[in-house]
């Protein structure tokens, strides 16, 4: 290997790392607020990519049907709860939040379809279209068991992934698609090294979005409320933060990130209805490096995963995933060693 190859691999690694970074942030966001390892994350990204592909061919994205189906299920679940509590007076609000709100992006997507609008319209519509998916499936399947153990939640979340990828097959069919590049052309780095604009866009989005994330969590009261819910649920309720509402917000934020990822990777790889799973799994490796709690460590972990994957695929394409998931072993060893040390220290303080 010479320096040119190493540079190519590094840039490629950083580009895939950026995707894992965004996915990792989404996973940590959802886990820290709700204790759910959100396995269907990657499926939502795939749905965004496939929706964009549908817009490009001028067909109505089947995602609309999916979102509307989920929204009606969520409305039924909410109404059932209201009936049992005899609070039917709140019905208009429920219909607004769980019925009308998810229908808005569907309406926008339907309107965009087949019109000769600039490409950006389809991109925005695809991202917005998948935003309701995570909050809706969480409302239907995860909220009723919100107080269950992490393991039960994980199993439910895994089941949701299989459900979603099955629905993906039903709605999108088995064919893969690839979209036009979001930005064409390439630029040259100092030193005469060419980089495609798409790769730069991926890295830039990761940087900008992690910056926004930081501002949201460090500077706004609502961001702090999300963190507070993650740190202490009872404390959050006592100051009037509703965990169900923050959970919906976290799922919405995660869904938005998934949508962005879908749109970013759609021009680079061919996406099938089940392509999302492996992206989610690798982002999960990054999230574990961050202990499912720390955003900065998750970001670093994601870049590391991207680089390992990129270099590993140069040496052996067949074994690249083995390398990526193999990095989990030293990470987990180190984490458990550190964790037991911290616990010991805390015990000493207690004494």
């Amino acid at each position, binding site marked *: 290997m010479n320096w040119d190859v190493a540079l190519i691999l590094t840039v490629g690694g950083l580009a895939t790392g950026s995707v894992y970074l965004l996915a990792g942030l989404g996973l940590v966001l959802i886990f820290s607020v709700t204790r759910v390892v959100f396995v269907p994350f990657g499926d939502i990204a795939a749905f965004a990519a496939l929706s964009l592909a549908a817009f490009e061919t001028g067909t109505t994205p089947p995602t609309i049907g999916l979102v509307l189906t989920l929204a009606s299920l969520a409305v039924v679940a909410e109404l059932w709860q209201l009936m049992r509590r005899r609070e039917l007076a709140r019905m208009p609000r429920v219909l607004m939040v769980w019925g009308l709100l998810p229908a808005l992006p569907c309406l926008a997507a339907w309107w965009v379809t087949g019109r000769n609008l600039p490409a950006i319209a389809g991109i925005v519509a695809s991202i917005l279209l998948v935003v309701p998916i995570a909050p809706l499936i969480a409302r239907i399947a995860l909220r009723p068991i919100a107080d269950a153990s992490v393991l039960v939640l994980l199993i439910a979340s895994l089941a949701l992934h299989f459900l979603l990828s099955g629905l993906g097959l039903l709605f999108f069919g088995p064919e893969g698609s690839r979209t036009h590049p979001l930005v064409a052309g390439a630029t040259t780095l100092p030193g005469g090294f060419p980089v495609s604009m798409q790769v730069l866009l991926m890295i830039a989005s990761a940087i900008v979005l992690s910056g926004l994330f930081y501002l949201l969590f460090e500077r706004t009261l609502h961001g*702090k409320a999300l*963190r*507070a819910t993650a740190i*202490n649920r009872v*404390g959050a*309720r006592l*100051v*009037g*933060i509703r965990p169900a509402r923050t959970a919906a917000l976290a799922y919405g934020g995660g869904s938005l990130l998934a949508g962005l990822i879908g749109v970013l990777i759609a021009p680079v790889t061919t996406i099938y209805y089940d392509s999302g799973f492996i992206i989610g799994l690798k982002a999960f490796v990054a999230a574990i490096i961050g202990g499912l709690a720390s955003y900065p460590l998750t970001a670093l972990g994601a870049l590391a995963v991207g680089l390992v994957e990129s270099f590993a695929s140069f040496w052996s394409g067949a074994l690249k995933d083995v390398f990526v998931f193999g990095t989990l072993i030293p990470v987990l060893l180190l984490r458990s060693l550190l964790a037991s040390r911290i616990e010991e220290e805390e015990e000493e303080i207690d004494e």
Partner: protein
Amino acid sequence: MTAALLEIGDLHVSYGRVEAVCGVSLSLAPGQIVSVIGPNGAGKTTLLAATMGLLPSTGTLRFEGEDLRGLDVEARVERGLCLVPEKRELFGDLSVQDNLQLGAYAKRLNGSTMGRRLQSVYALFPRLAERRSQLARTLSGGEQQMLALGRALMSAPRLLMLDEPSLGLAPLIVCEILAIVRTLREDGVSILLVEQNARVALENSDHGYVLESGEVALSGASSILAGDARVQATYLGGGTDDD
């Protein structure tokens, strides 16, 4: 008699089959400090948790004449109830200032009102102002109690419920905290104080209830309760017989 701010009538709370609070009635007038004393496991904490809505209960619960049943914890916070629990329930990984700001979350304050409230809490607890950018979990026990109280005050509560504010604290800090609690009354805050330390509780309240095995065993003006032979013997440790 003026209309009660908080009216609890025949309240029952159970954990599974075990009844922790069995038919407690209690009322609190605006501007009053009412203390609830009693031994460990008498149901004091349970009583507060049920009033706040953290535990389901049966019986009447009225706040300013409004029925609280059917309102969740967050809705009660919006109405002006505020609980400082025994475990304080702070946000350990957030800074002192973030903890305080979140205390006013339910009130949706604008920037300048938030700033003014922060200043008034810092004026009450100068120690918190010194530590404003420190993480809450790095504070000492007394400072954490001050932060819990400060966070509660940020919501400008009508009724402040304090669960064992003296727990694990040095007597001097307890005095400091209770002195502040007494000044709150001048700002129109009513206080429901739950304490195992009966002397501290009765010295700092207008009216007292003695809770035993989930029932009200005695109630009356705090000064009279403090003079009661049975209370003295059991809770103040200065009684005639020594068991």
